[in-house]
């Protein structure tokens, strides 16, 4: 419990910053909706003239810009990108921070099992992610309702989108944690998290450009494609299962690896 509290305190500033910037982004993008929807007809025409590959790359295909949810799903892709970086950051930094700051031997000398250290840290980071998640929920629902004007929307696809966040975060978090335990030393967390998040994002954008590709099925951005969820009001279940499998494998792997990890000491 002490570890949990300490870890959460360490995270809280970063959680606030990430949540605030996400909320800000949602509101800025949503506030453009009013002006966009007014000349949505024009917009639709203009978009029709854009090269299709560009639209696909930015998730702007099959989009009805006249509908709130159509527009929201476009924003949601960027939310996912930010959420992925945040979750990746926490995952990569979770245990590697102790080794980098040379506090690992202090922590591991405490009369606590390694597995419970990992669990406490894990739960603390998860709490942080959930706070961010909640902020995205609230600001999304607020922004959608604030800027939708007279337009109506269906609640189910929106909730499905928002519900997917937690799994999405967990994928990046646990994969990051696993990788950080696989490598010898993580000097700096951000490059890893950026590479993971942007790599999978670019891969997914690329994959959408050409229909059936195998490699792209691995990226979580494809598992929770906003357009698909909005259009079908359902998840793409087989792909979501890949994400769940990734989480299970990474978490078990992390526990196993952390039990046996060699910890370098400062002296």
């Amino acid at each position, binding site marked *: 419990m002490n570890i949990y509290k300490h870890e959460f305190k360490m995270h809280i500033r*970063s959680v606030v910053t990430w949540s605030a*910037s996400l909320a800000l*982004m949602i509101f*800025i*993008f949503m506030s*453009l909706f009013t*002006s*966009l929807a007014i000349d949505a007809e024009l917009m639709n025409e203009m978009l029709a*003239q*854009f*090269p299709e*590959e*560009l639209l696909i*790359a*930015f998730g702007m295909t099959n989009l009805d810009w006249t509908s709130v949810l159509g527009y929201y799903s476009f924003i949601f892709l*960027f939310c996912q*990108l*930010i959420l992925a*970086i945040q979750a990746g*950051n926490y995952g990569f930094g979770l245990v590697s921070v102790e080794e*980098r700051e040379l506090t690992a031997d202090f922590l591991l000398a405490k009369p606590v099992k390694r597995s419970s250290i990992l669990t406490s840290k894990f739960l603390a980071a998860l709490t942080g992610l959930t706070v961010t998640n909640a902020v995205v929920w609230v600001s999304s629902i607020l922004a959608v309702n604030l800027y939708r004007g007279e337009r109506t929307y269906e609640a189910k696809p929106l909730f499905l989108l928002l519900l997917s966040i937690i799994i999405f975060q967990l994928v990046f978090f646990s994969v990051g944690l696993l990788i950080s335990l696989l490598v010898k030393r993580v*000097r*700096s*967390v*951000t*490059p890893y998290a*950026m*590479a993971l998040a*942007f*790599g999978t994002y*670019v891969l997914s*954008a*690329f994959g959408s*450009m*050409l229909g059936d*590709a195998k*490699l792209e099925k691995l990226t979580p951005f494809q598992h929770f494609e906003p357009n698909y969820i909005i259009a079908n009001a359902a998840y793409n279940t087989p792909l979501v299962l890949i994400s769940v499998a990734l989480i299970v494998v990474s978490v078990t792997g992390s526990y196993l690896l952390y039990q046996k990890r060699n910890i370098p000491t400062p002296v």
Partner: protein
Amino acid sequence: MNIFLHELKANLKSLLIWCVIMLMFVSTGFAKFSAYEGNPELLAILDDLPPAMLAAFNFSAFNLTTVTGFLGVMYNYFALVLTIAAVMWGSDIIAKEERDKTVEFALTLPVPRSKLVTGKTLAVLVNCIALVLFTWGAAAANAAKYTPDEQFYDFLALSMLAIFVMQMVFLAVGILLGAAMKQYKRANSMAVSILLATFFISIISGLNKNLEFLKYVSPFTYFNPGTMLRELVIDMDYVWLSAGIVLAAMAGAYAAYKKRDLYI
């Protein structure tokens, strides 16, 4: 000179990793292009559109049935990945000394601090140049099998130049953050947030006509691949703007690092 060489050696691994990433990226991209090449359906759609419209919307730039048009689409991704590399290197190169607790050692060397910054900057500069050249070579090599015309190579050269200018902007901003931010731990995440923010701004500025002024804020919008392809020129105004940003950031970095307090 020693600092420069040392940093080059220390960053070699990271450079190699980025090269591998770019190589994979370029080859998968061009492998995908094979499905587009000479695709009759796409060609038919393009033929149906009036030429004026094609020009107005850069459509011809992104004619995916030609290897040149395909590069036009890839440009955005190249720019994103390569600038990430630049901003990471820039923000890390100075901040890492404090993180790895080697800063006392580095600063007790009989060289002025400004020389330290110069050596480190040159090292990451060489890294950036190497990565761009590598990407250039990889793209040219991968495109070779589609027998591209003269225009492709000109456009490739121009887009690499544009991306290099963008890299310089982000590199300089990264170095400034590393040198000036009180908490070295924040420099890295700050650099990333700036990159993300400018990336989103580049998207917003395209959405609404009233927000077009935002394009000056984001280096991602400085060079339009469509114009570059059609006219084969690089917009000099933005090159000067970028140079201004780079100079200002570097001057700031030197000034800040000279007075930097170290918490050991």
